[in-house]
């Protein structure tokens, strides 16, 4: 019989075969997470079109003492979600509806025939359940005004703002936007000023996480839902916590933003600079 391989070649072939076989089998067992942020257009504008597919992560860290400062424009905030199955990529529309729902407390005709919340000692915004059809109508309206999915899947930041502006102006009101970023970073001082003025903040995110926090007095656990797409959520308050060691030295300083996620069944805080990229953050004021 004619020899095809010499001994070394034969050993290499067997090793390669075994390696390929093992790699194939392992790939069937483990899903390799991919980080693919949604695309931008030819002029660099990002399209926000959250898919809502999450993976779980847990982060823990210890501390001895902590100091906290916080502020919220209200104890609760609208957290609407899309219930129209014919609409896709609605995160910008839902974020806009949450802004409109919040200001409907002050300008009753923003959402016709809807009382957004109630309360004497504290004002609580009703769940999406109450007046669901009327709230969905706002999302439907913004879907058209924002030209969702016309150019590409989702909306750009410009389309999102144009849609809100168009809606608000149709109700005889005016809207303004104020950036709370400095040199590409979230600026807490600017955000504080906007929150204290009663203005919620739109967060434009590429890769993000919403965390539920457990703090037993010395150990903080962040149970996070992590997403690798582009999304717009609304922040309505913050909590800045400085975690220190036994000597009072700063271990880490964390900014938690209270958010309306816009995703059904998903709650939690947005932890600044924890995962993904915050592309921009703008306060919205309706007058």
């Amino acid at each position, binding site marked *: 019989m004619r020899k095809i391989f010499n001994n070394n070649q034969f050993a290499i072939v067997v090793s390669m075969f075994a390696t390929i076989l093992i790699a194939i089998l392992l790939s069937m067992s483990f899903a390799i997470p991919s980080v693919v942020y949604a695309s931008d257009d030819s002029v660099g504008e990002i399209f926000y079109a959250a898919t809502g597919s*999450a993976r779980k992560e847990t982060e823990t860290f210890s501390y001895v003492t902590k100091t906290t400062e916080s502020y919220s424009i209200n104890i609760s905030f609208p957290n609407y979600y899309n219930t129209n199955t014919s609409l896709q990529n609605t995160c910008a529309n839902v974020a806009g509806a949450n802004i409109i729902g919040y200001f409907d407390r002050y300008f009753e005709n923003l959402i016709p025939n809807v009382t957004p919340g109630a309360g004497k000692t504290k004002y609580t915004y009703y769940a999406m359940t109450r007046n669901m059809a009327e709230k969905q109508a706002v999302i439907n309206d913004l879907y058209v005004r924002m030209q969702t999915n016309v150019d590409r899947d989702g909306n750009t930041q410009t389309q999102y703002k144009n849609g809100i502006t168009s809606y608000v102006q149709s109700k005889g009101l005016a809207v303004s936007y104020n950036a709370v970023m400095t040199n590409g970073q979230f600026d807490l001082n600017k955000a504080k000023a906007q929150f204290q003025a009663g203005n919620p903040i739109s967060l434009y995110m590429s890769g993000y996480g919403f965390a539920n926090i457990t703090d037993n007095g010395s150990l903080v656990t962040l149970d996070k839902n992590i997403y690798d797409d582009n999304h717009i959520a609304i922040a309505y308050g913050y909590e800045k916590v400085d975690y220190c060691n036994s000597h009072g030295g700063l271990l880490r300083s964390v900014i938690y933003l209270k958010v309306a996620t816009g995703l059904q069944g998903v709650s939690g805080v947005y932890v600044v600079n924890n995962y993904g990229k915050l592309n921009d953050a703008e306060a919205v004021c309706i007058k």
Partner: protein
Amino acid sequence: MDNKELYEILQEYADDVKAEKESAFKKLNEQPKEDVKQSRKRFKPQYAFAIAMCMVVVVLCIALPIALTDKPHGYVEPTYCSSGEIIFGFEGNSLADIEKYHIDAYYPTLVTDKENMAVCSILSDKDTSLHGIQIGYVLEEDEDEMTFIELAIVPKTHILQIYEDYFDLQEKIKWNKYDVKYFRALNQGTLMYDTQIYFTDGKYDYFIDVESDGEIETTDLLNLLYN
């Protein structure tokens, strides 16, 4: 040439031929020995070991997952749906709006006025096949005493990512004939109590999410839904 001379010539030729024949046979006899030697080289133990290891890996990868699962015979793995693979569709304000789906589940009997109740279908975002239903309530004792309830009913053929944490709830009670799991805590952000409840009737999973200004016992919440 006489006969003697001819014999000598022939004898000489025969001797030459014999010598070549022996020489040829000698080469022929040696050739198989080399072949055998080369064949033995190809099947060195390390190659056999590598092939055996490959076979072991293949067998383990196939057999271990099967051997280590304790699923009963005939068990069908539920379809897992990530939160991005489902959509909620508003159907109306009463249970009558989902009769068309013919779901023979354990429905709540709680009824409120229409603006405070909403019924949604939970659909696949790919083919809009039904993955469950959601029934929501807003209850308002007074302006400072609100309760928001969302009950999702999901067939056991599906596991929805947004509800999978409910399976791990730690607190347990017995309510009617059901083994109920739950968790309740005061949400420091909203100053409302968040309660999660899970039970199953074997055919459907029932996931209940409650936000309430007052602390409400799990049994009372279930009695409120199924009074």
